[in-house]
């Protein structure tokens, strides 16, 4: 397994947010983490990369226990994280944003550099010197993904990449994610949009109120409309 999460519990202050989360991601797989707003998707990702201080449980990445490591060490080990709110550096140019994400090459992980990323996201290549603050939402979303790929990760946690994007940009996003998969990057993508998830994912988990309540292939999920309706539809 690429990534194994076991018994993950997280707290914000006295509030218990995640309950015994368990996830598995195989080599080169794209796995969707589905759930409504506030179900715990972002907290799950933040806990995996060590951004939630108060947590317990085990996170195994490429056979190594990373649950006790600080965030930067987890990420340097090849576990990339793309946050939900984009969080690009608005004062920095596109190229400088990418520079912040750059990490040394890693054996056994797909390699990325600026030119390769500009091929994947042609829009970005046309605005290398533009400050991040003066880009559209879709361009910013591309930039956050490209920035994380600069770290040559072997697995990426993608938090709601389609959120707030126009249908046309969502299409580009699907292409980009499939291209990443083709390069050999394993991906966990959190989504509320089942349609989007179906286009890219091999398997899916459903999270509700901090608990995983379903795990299986997309076909298995389609065979259970009851679960889909109970936990996903509005």
């Amino acid at each position: 397994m690429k990534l194994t999460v076991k018994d993950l519990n997280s707290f914000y202050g006295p509030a218990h947010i995640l309950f015994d989360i368990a996830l598995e991601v195989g080599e080169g797989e794209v796995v969707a983490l589905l759930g409504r707003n506030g179900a715990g998707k972002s907290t799950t990702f933040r806990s995996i990369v060590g951004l939630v201080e108060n947590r317990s449980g085990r996170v195994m990445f490429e056979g190594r226990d990373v649950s006790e490591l600080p965030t930067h060490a987890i990420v340097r080990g090849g576990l990339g994280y793309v946050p939900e709110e984009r969080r690009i550096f608005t004062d920095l140019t596109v190229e400088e944003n990418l520079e912040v994400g750059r990490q040394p090459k890693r054996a056994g992980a797909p390699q990325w550099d600026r030119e390769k990323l500009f091929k994947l996201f042609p829009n970005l290549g046309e605005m290398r010197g533009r400050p991040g603050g003066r880009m559209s939402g879709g361009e910013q979303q591309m930039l956050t993904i490209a920035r994380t790929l600069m770290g040559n990760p072997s697995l990426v946690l993608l938090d709601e990449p389609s959120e707030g994007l126009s249908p046309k940009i969502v299409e580009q996003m699907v292409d980009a994610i499939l291209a990443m998969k083709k390069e050999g990057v394993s991906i966990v993508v959190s989504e509320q949009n089942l349609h989007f998830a179906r286009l890219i994912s091999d398997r899916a988990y459903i999270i509700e109120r901090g608990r995983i309540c379903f795990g299986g292939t997309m076909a298995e999920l389609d065979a259970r409309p009851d679960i889909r309706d109970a936990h996903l539809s509005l």
Partner: protein
Amino acid sequence: MAFYVVQFLTGLASAASLFLVASGLSIIFGVTRIVNFAHGAFYMLGAYVAFTLTERFSGAFGFWGGIVVAALVVAAIGVLVEMVLLRRIYHSPELFQLLATFGLTLMVEDLVVLIWGPDDLVGRRAPGFKGAIDFFGQNIPSYDLFLIVLGPVVLGVLWLLFQRTRWGVLVRAATQDRDMVAALGVNQKWLFTSVFALGVFLAALGGALQIPRDAVNHAMDLRVIVEVFVVVVIGGLGSIIGAFVAAVLVSELNAFGILIFPKISIILVFLVMAVVLIVRPWGLFGKPEAPARRTPGLTVNPWRPLTTNERLAAIAVLVVAAALPFVGGNYLLTVGSEIAIFVIFAVSLHFLMSVGGLASFGHAAYFGLGAYGVALLAKMAGLPMIACLLLGPLLGLLGAAVFGFFAVQLSGVYFAMLTLAFAQIVWSIAFQWVSVTGGDNGILGVWPEKWAASPSHFYWLSLGVAALAVVILRIIVFSPFGFALRATRDSPLRSEAVGINGKRIQWTAFVIAGTVAGLAGALFAYLKGSVFPDNMGISLSVDALVMVLLGGVETVSGAVVGAIVYKALNIWLVSQTDLSKLVLGGFVVLIVVAFPKGIVGTLEAFMHRRRKSSSSASSPLLTSRIESAE
């Protein structure tokens, strides 16, 4: 004409050092969000170490090498400080960060005297820049010309560093979003340490470069830090260009101000700063910050008025205290009076700081103004004591009304810097305006009238006023005004949304606190029979902060306990050691790191835990520690 040109060039030369120190402060703040109050101490250390090195090694190489090595040595000390102290408090509330770095300043001041002695040291001239250049009959030291060139060169180097290197890009990214930088695999710890090292290096270099111009002494840290605060407030904290422009502006104002107001040249700088604050509160080149992150508390015990039993207990304590003259001698009574006066002072600061959420680093200004008010009324107008005691504090009120108006336009670290700068301005006026204030000699012979002259009578007077002040401030805390003040403290936006005029409420609180502090100062003048500029000095402001902290920032009346314990310890300590600043500074750092809740806060937490274990019904939400600011 030539004279003015020379004056202008002198101003530019002074700007160089100021810019180095201010840019260092700005860089450190940008990434770590800590306003390093110890920055002046690093500047001073740079000068002292450079003095030693340049005396030791001769020749041009010895001099210039000594300057650079001194800055590097001090930067290494800075790294040590960052790793040992600052790393522990990056997540603490702002106030604690300011206090810890301030405690460090106090320690350095005593250490410097211990190592280099108390006398001014005159360093040697810079090789190659010993002479002066004749400019239409006026002399310009060639070293000044060197400094004038150096300023823009350093600005350029810093610009290249931040724009053209990976490190610079990371620093700029971290200035905007530290956590995201970590989430991209960058080790923040070392980024912070390296930034701190660079900032300290710049400060120390600024100090080292001053030795051919100025004598090295152990008060230069506070002098420069006040100017630097003024510079970053004008230029905008976090902006290097802003630091440069404002350093030039402030230096020129000083250079020409001395021609216009020879006695109180600092007034001119103050006026410019006031104008900038009104027009652009975030400084000329700064960016308006999003509403500051609320510093989370250590505990969230809701405040409540005293119960009947607690009131009776407080009265009983007061009665016991009032019985002191029947058992204690005159010395004990004088100490008792002083403690009572400092209770008044401490509760006034506590009111501003804990209730108002405005941590003033210059509260002694209003204490001192009250003392000077009394002294001037008694000596010049010859008013009777009662009239003096009633009217003297009005000078504190006036000062608080003027300075408070500007100070409450800002919050958080800006507020702290500004109040400190104001206090230094008031101090330098008292120090420089010899014809009115007597300067360093102070005003002597302010003695109480016969009815209050005996130690026991004066003690009862002080105790009575102290009790009154505590009661009145507590009543205000639980009045509608107090609620509005606390609402503004906890959420400026929400309180604004329910129709509270936050700035006015805070200004009023500032004036109340200043007036009460003035009352304490008025009594203090009569207790000592004299007033001196030190009655409004920085160390007195810090004393008050420590009293509040020691008692417990987040309690309603911890300051009372803090003042009593601290003042008693302090009086004893001063009689035991010459290194009181070293001990005091160490004490401050210790409280911040190990004991942030203070005496009363710790007691309350203890009682609460006991009560909770006996009745498990109480809500865990109210007692748990808040872990993160976001």
